[in-house]
């Protein structure tokens, strides 16, 4: 009985991972794009993106999840799983946008100057010089954000997606052992965030630029 329950909850892991693997890259692309607009896009665009950032980060994720879900579900017919994942991606894009903005600015105007001085266009400079360094600088805070998205994926419980938490709740109702069920859920999440952090530590070590100032250090 216990093993069956454990297995049932564990299967939710796939859903959780799937939600994360949709939300995080979506947030990455959107966030990076918006960050570039913010830093290089001129005053008006900068303000608009700034407004987006402040708004999206000033509202609790669960509230935004509901709003975006209701909007999406109201217009097109997609599963709560997909709607929830996209919503989480949109939410994450605001936080990632701030991370990339910081990284782009940390790379410094000097690098841009140097790139232009050998004849690169702005776009080339951004693509070949700025972004590679910025991405590297962004890894520590980004790994924080990745772990956060893993944890926030539990929010799709509220829209009925059968991820880890919802399954744990089901088991807790079935077996009358709620503490055990939810502790198992917690431990699975813990393992996921732990692995995420280790994975990104590995990426950071592998892509290390020797002696370059790190953004994430105290």
């Amino acid at each position: 009985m216990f093993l069956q329950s454990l297995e049932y909850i564990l299967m939710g892991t796939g859903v959780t991972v799937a939600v994360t693997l949709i939300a995080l890259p979506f947030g990455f692309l959107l966030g990076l794009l918006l960050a570039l607009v913010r830093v290089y896009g001129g005053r008006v665009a900068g303000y608009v993106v700034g407004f987006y950032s402040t708004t999206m980060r000033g509202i609790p994720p669960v509230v935004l999840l509901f709003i975006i879900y209701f909007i999406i579900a109201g217009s097109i017919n997609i599963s709560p799983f997909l709607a929830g994942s996209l919503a989480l991606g949109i939410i994450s894009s605001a936080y990632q946008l701030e991370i990339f903005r910081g990284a782009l600015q940390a790379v410094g105007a000097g690098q841009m100057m140097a790139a232009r001085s050998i004849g690169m266009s702005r776009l080339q400079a951004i693509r070949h010089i700025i972004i590679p360094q910025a991405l590297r600088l962004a890894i520590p805070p980004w790994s924080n954000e990745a772990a956060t998205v893993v944890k926030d994926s539990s929010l799709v419980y509220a829209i009925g997606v059968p991820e880890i938490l919802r399954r744990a709740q089901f088991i807790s109702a079935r077996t009358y052992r709620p503490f055990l069920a939810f502790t198992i859920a917690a431990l699975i999440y813990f393992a996921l965030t732990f692995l995420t952090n280790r994975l990104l530590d590995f990426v950071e070590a592998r892509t290390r630029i020797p002696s370059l100032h790190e953004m994430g250090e105290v």
Partner: protein
Amino acid sequence: MIEILLRYWPEFLSGLKITLQLTLVGLGVGSVLGMLAALGRLYGSRWIRWLAIGYIELFRGTPLLVQLFAIYFGLPDFGVTVSRMQAALIVLAINSGAYQAEYFRGAIQAIGSGQMMAARSIGMSRWQAIRHIILPQALRVVIPAWSNEPVSLLKASAVVFLIAVPDVMTQAKIVAARTYQPLPSYFIVAFIYLIVVYALSTLLNRIERRYRIPGLEVESHRT
């Protein structure tokens, strides 16, 4: 949407009060827990250090929602019944404490072991050094990074509606049910949060500027 707000503002207000209560208590109790955990992690014996690290990693590495369910639904397993509000307060405090512990730890480490050495060299005990030399400086230095936490906690507290704590989100659901219109209610809630977050951020900014020590800063983390 305006009509709904005008008609149901008492409900939203009562929900807001609960939300603010939760945040305030969570922040306060959490700061005590956080400070204890940070000190334990930095200066404690081996067992205390492991306990502190375990606490911090566990509550930072798992979703708040799961912690909430585990406490609210799980405590009865041990014969302890808590009300929804109590469960929410407990979890928010413990959760916030774990995050605050990391802010405090960063600040204390930023002050540096040199200050500790200097304090010991005039005969202060470790505890005296922590109390008179390290903490006064650390508490000033931590302010910029720490001021992320009140806003984070405020936003995080929104999930308590999922165990039917009567916060502002629960009220929105009630109003949504009555008006058959979910979206306007949720927009109102979003708007309320935006305003409160803005007010809170401005307040914290002002405090930070007043107490800043130039040259000593700590990296900030989002929850």
